């Protein structure tokens, strides 16, 4: 049995630095002798990555460097498309919208997921198993089906929610109105992804040594204290991972607004950056500008993700 000196858990997944370095050096010396077999094992994956990621990315980047206007035709235009993208009010509006959306939706969803994971970890009955399955189920529903389903649930005629306020004499709710639309969309995303994140966090909790809880208990910590001050810090890495995936997903927000647009006229052609890129390509036939938007968006996602990881690492570094 190990005893921790403090209630705060050590970072279990912080690898000791020295051995890694030395083993890396050892490996690099033997690199020429690496058997061909190893390369062959990697080859299928490598080919798929090249064919379905590197080549399309390169092609899209090449597309983004030229412009095709309807009247004039295609010409090389360098960074013109990017200048246009970063000064396009429609695109910037959409970007601002997903950032606002993310600032509210991501903490809410991860908060619920974390609370759920901690509860599941603390309760070990058959009910917990069933709950895990049910919570995960929305993730198994394709996003298109989920969005359509919610479209009907929000409907004034067919949905059960819109008329609820009329029971107490209020006005029916219009879930597609401009003021509620982001909330309605956020609810769909939260519904679809909370269970998934909960399972990630729950799995991470399974990897925390049980002895730490026992130690905390002996030190007199209440179950709530154990959850917040032992379990949460112990799975911090998993929480950041879930957060970063969610941030990336939010920046690429597309399916739900695209499907809901048929119910909600307030969803404009540039409602989210990805929707705008889609419409530029597939409605307005401007594949070049669409490629530039996609690349600019990809770059932004990269920057946001990098800053997030950097800040996170520094915070960890400071504490250590």
């Amino acid at each position: 049995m190990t005893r921790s000196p403090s209630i705060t858990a050590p970072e279990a997944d912080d690898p000791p630095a020295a051995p890694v370095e030395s083993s890396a050096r050892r490996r690099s010396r033997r690199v020429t002798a690496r058997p061909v077999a190893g390369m062959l094992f990697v080859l299928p994956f490598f080919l798929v990555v090249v064919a379905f990621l590197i080549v399309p990315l390169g092609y899209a980047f090449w597309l983004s460097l030229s412009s095709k206007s309807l009247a004039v035709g295609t010409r090389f235009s360098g960074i013109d498309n990017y200048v246009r993208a970063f000064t396009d009010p429609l695109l910037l509006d959409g970007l601002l919208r997903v950032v606002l959306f993310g600032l509210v939706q991501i903490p809410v969803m991860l908060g619920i997921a974390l609370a759920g994971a901690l509860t599941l970890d603390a309760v070990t009955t058959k009910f917990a198993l069933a709950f895990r399955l049910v919570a995960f189920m929305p993730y198994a529903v394709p996003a298109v089906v989920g969005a359509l389903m919610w479209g009907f649930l929000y409907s004034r005629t067919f949905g059960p929610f819109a008329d609820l306020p009329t029971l107490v004499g209020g006005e029916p709710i219009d879930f597609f109105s401009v003021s509620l639309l982001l909330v309605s969309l956020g609810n769909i995303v939260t519904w679809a992804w909370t269970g998934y994140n909960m399972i990630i966090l729950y799995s991470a909790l399974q990897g925390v040594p049980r002895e730490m809880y026992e130690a905390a208990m002996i030190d007199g910590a209440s179950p709530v204290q154990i959850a917040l001050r032992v379990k949460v810090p112990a799975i911090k890495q998993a929480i950041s991972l879930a957060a970063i995936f969610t941030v990336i997903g939010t920046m690429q927000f597309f399916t739900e607004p695209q499907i809901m647009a048929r119910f909600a006229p307030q969803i404009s052609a540039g409602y989210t950056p990805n929707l705008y890129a889609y419409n530029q390509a597939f409605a307005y036939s401007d594949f070049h500008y669409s490629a530039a938007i996609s690349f600019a968006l990809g770059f932004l996602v990269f920057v946001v993700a990098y800053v997030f990881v950097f800040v996170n690492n520094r915070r960890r570094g400071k504490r250590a």
Partner: protein
Amino acid sequence: MLGTTWLAKLRGGLAACGLLAVAACGGASSDDGPVTVSVWAWYPEFKGVVEAFNASHPDIKVEWTNAGTGADHYAKLKTAITAGKGAPDVAMVEFQQIPTFIILDALADMGEHGANEDKGLYADWAWEQATDGEKVYAIPVDGGPMALMYRKDLFDQHGIPVPTTWAEYAEAAVKIKAIDPNAHIASFGSDGGWLNGLMWQSGCRPYGYSHTTAKDQVKINLTAPECERVVDLVGDLVDKGLMAKDPFFTADATAALDSGKYWTWAAAGWTPGYLAGSLKNTAGKWAVAPMPQWTAGADEQGDWGGSTFTVTKQAKNPKAATTVARELFGKSDAAWQIGLDKAFLYPLVKDVAADPAFTGKAYDFFNGQKVNEIFVPVSEKLGDFQFTPFQDFVYSELNDRSAEAMSGSRPWSTVLEQTQENVVAYAEQQGFKVGK
């Protein structure tokens, strides 16, 4: 939801084509067998039309794919055209999309294969939109002459006269609200094509474009008084709560039509077919009247929708493809029998539209009214109307700016002004010289 299933099926189909048998998926035949012509279309009941064509043309075999309805279909078609391969030989294209596909260099000139012979066969306005001088880019099939559908039972019961002018229409809207606070005279459908049809009927001619005369010149004039008065009218009705805000073709809008929440719909010649299947409760209670006029006693008409067959430049055998485009419907009695009786298309073939079998047809949905007696003169009255080569952008602007007005973040009076400004900026960005 149906759409999703079709999409899934289509994806499966496309994947199978790509992986397994290129030849079986639209390759021209080599020996003495019939030439295969691939067709993308989403007409209802189209299977029978294809079968009728194949039965009467032993030398051509049509292979039909439903690539989705409207926007889904166009997204695939535009992608295939940009990619340079994968497009069908013959594609269904709605009138407002023809200039868009012309400027994408997607359409073959069927005039080179004798299609100019069909000039007299079709309604003049439709032929004008489908052609550019001697160049025949499209063969008209069905149209959407507009008329006012209304709940005859409710109008009669409450003694409201059927509006003959838009001013009377607005008065009726107030009366309807007074009778039933939950009812609306109609819905603002957030449909660019519908708004465009109303503007057409108001005498507004907002666009001008001819690819043959000047491919880089386009006229945009959405702020003419004839256009503005339409948006003023519907905007005012929406602001006063007299017109609902449900987008057309949603389950909510259909349910509202079928439950007495909407009393009218300024709709198109194809609408009866679309409605007859969906409105079970109110079938037999509807009637059709001519569109309300802006000036009492005038006879201004408009069109909403309608479609054509085009031959793409990727067609392997443009001559055979032209035959398919001209004769799938064209003069085929068998095809029109299906088109009229089952798919409820409004025929743009003059002889078919003038046939007593069509004009004299009584519709149960309209309690036995011979509604084509109203629709046919409308189609005959339709004159010149042109579209831009970027109509998707225009409709999207119209919808987005109207949505802003509906949510109160913009006065209705600025909807067309802002649309005009954005469309002009877009056109100039796309390299057009813009005039009014």
